């Protein structure tokens, strides 16, 4: 390299160095201290968020399905990322339903399995706070003083413990007891419980066999109100649509007739499709649940899975989202009142 070129290169280097120092000074002047990783600042200057997420204002999973599903997905994703705590702000919740409280409980269990504690505050609206208490949401939780909340007597939960992969005689007894309590609450006496047992067993069986939920976990809860009992059964697995087997010709028919995922889900309840077991005699459980609704044993059956929701009472099946991964799991909600076949 000639002397003159070497001189020019050196000047250029010094010039670039000077520019870099100027840029750094400007960045240091404009960037807040806590982002730069320095801890010695006053609390007033650092806007540390108190909560990691905020619950939707309309926190009814069966009404405002998409927003709630996306909210639950965010919590689950955060819980799976390895963080130790996740706090949600429920202060502004104006409406809530039993399905949402059950989902939050189940997700809390799932996060706990991953070593993450889910916490938060109660809604400011008294009706919503009371609903949360009555639904039994606080039953296994602790307040900020590490004291357990008083259990609600207006609800009953059956949850499979971690590590249990199959239904046992203990579960069958628990189902029978739950159905007996429901009939006692509604009729003042216990009549035969068989059909309602069948429905609960079939739904839980689907979760255990097909959901691929962590440790085949599923949750069943009942909320006792004055004139009815609301029951919710859910699992946090892959969802019905991901486990259906649709053969090539059926798939082609669906494409040609522009069938949506919601239509396909409804078809599963009419035994139009098989299961991934590829046995022609399978898929008896979902039609059995629908038949129970048609025959009047249960009412107001709603099923939410993947990206679709079916409301059997109104005869609607709708997609609330484009992607099947929006809600990984299946939730059944139904009610029993005095007008059902008991």
């Amino acid at each position, binding site marked *: 390299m000639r002397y003159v070129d070497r001189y020019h290169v050196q000047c250029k280097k010094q010039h670039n160095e000077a520019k870099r120092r100027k840029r750094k000074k400007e960045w240091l002047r404009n960037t807040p201290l806590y982002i730069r990783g320095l801890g010695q600042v006053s609390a007033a200057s650092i806007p540390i968020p108190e909560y990691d997420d905020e619950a939707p204002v309309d926190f009814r999973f069966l009404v405002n399905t998409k927003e709630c599903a996306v909210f639950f997905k965010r919590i689950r994703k955060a819980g799976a990322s390895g963080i130790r705590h996740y706090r949600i702000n429920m202060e502004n919740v104006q409406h809530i339903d039993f399905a949402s409280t059950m989902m939050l409980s189940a997700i809390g269990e799932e996060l706990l399995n991953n070593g993450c504690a889910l916490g938060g505050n109660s809604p400011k609206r008294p009706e919503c706070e009371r609903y949360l208490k009555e639904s039994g949401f606080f039953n296994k939780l602790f307040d900020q003083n590490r004291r357990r909340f008083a259990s609600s007597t207006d609800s009953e939960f059956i949850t499979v413990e971690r590590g249990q*992969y*199959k*239904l*046992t*005689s203990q579960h*069958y*007894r628990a189902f*029978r007891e739950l159905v*007996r309590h429901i009939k006692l609450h509604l009729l003042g006496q216990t009549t*035969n*419980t*068989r*059909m*309602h*047992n*069948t429905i609960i*067993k*079939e739904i839980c*069986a689907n979760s*255990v*066999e097909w959901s691929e939920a962590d440790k085949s976990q599923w949750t069943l809860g009942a909320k006792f109100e004055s004139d009815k009992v609301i029951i919710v059964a859910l699992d946090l697995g892959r969802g019905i649509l991901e486990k259906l087997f649709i053969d090539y010709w059926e798939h082609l028919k669906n494409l040609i007739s522009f069938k949506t995922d919601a239509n396909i889900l409804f078809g599963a309840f009419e035994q139009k499709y098989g299961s991934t*077991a590829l*046995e*022609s*005699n399978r898929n*008896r*459980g979902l039609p*059995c649940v629908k038949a129970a609704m048609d025959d009047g044993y249960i009412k107001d059956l709603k099923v939410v899975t993947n990206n679709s929701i079916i409301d059997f009472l109104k005869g609607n099946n709708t997609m609330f989202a484009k992607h099947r991964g929006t809600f990984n799991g299946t939730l059944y909600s139904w009610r029993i009142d005095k007008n059902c076949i008991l």
Partner: protein
Amino acid sequence: MTFNIHQDYSEDTGIRHSKYSETSGEDFYHDKLNEIFYGCYTRNEVLELVLDGGDDGYTPSFLDESIGNLVYDFTLDVVKTMLHIVSDWEPYWIDEIEKKTYPKWEERRRKGEQATITKSHGAWYRLINGVPEKRVWIVYTEEQ
């Protein structure tokens, strides 16, 4: 011969396979139903299978797996002749079995689609050219 599932097998019944529940349809078939039906077959006696009794409800998968396996191993004609199902409390089960279980499992038998087992079972009876033969017809492996 009369066999009441709730009294003679278990007060509680599960779902289809042993892997996913206790007292499943698979367990019931291999532990009880196959042997009892074979006994009735050799004596040329009708087996009366009573579904009534108890508070526990059946699942369609339990009945489908247990009675379906009977159709597979003994053929539909034999089962229709020698099995009488009694379900006075819930008559719809008889409809379910006759309209769905029987034809689907007979179709599986004709196509040679073996039943699925989810654990090892002892030898059981199957009709081969009208003659009952007892052996382990399906060997359970972990991959199933």
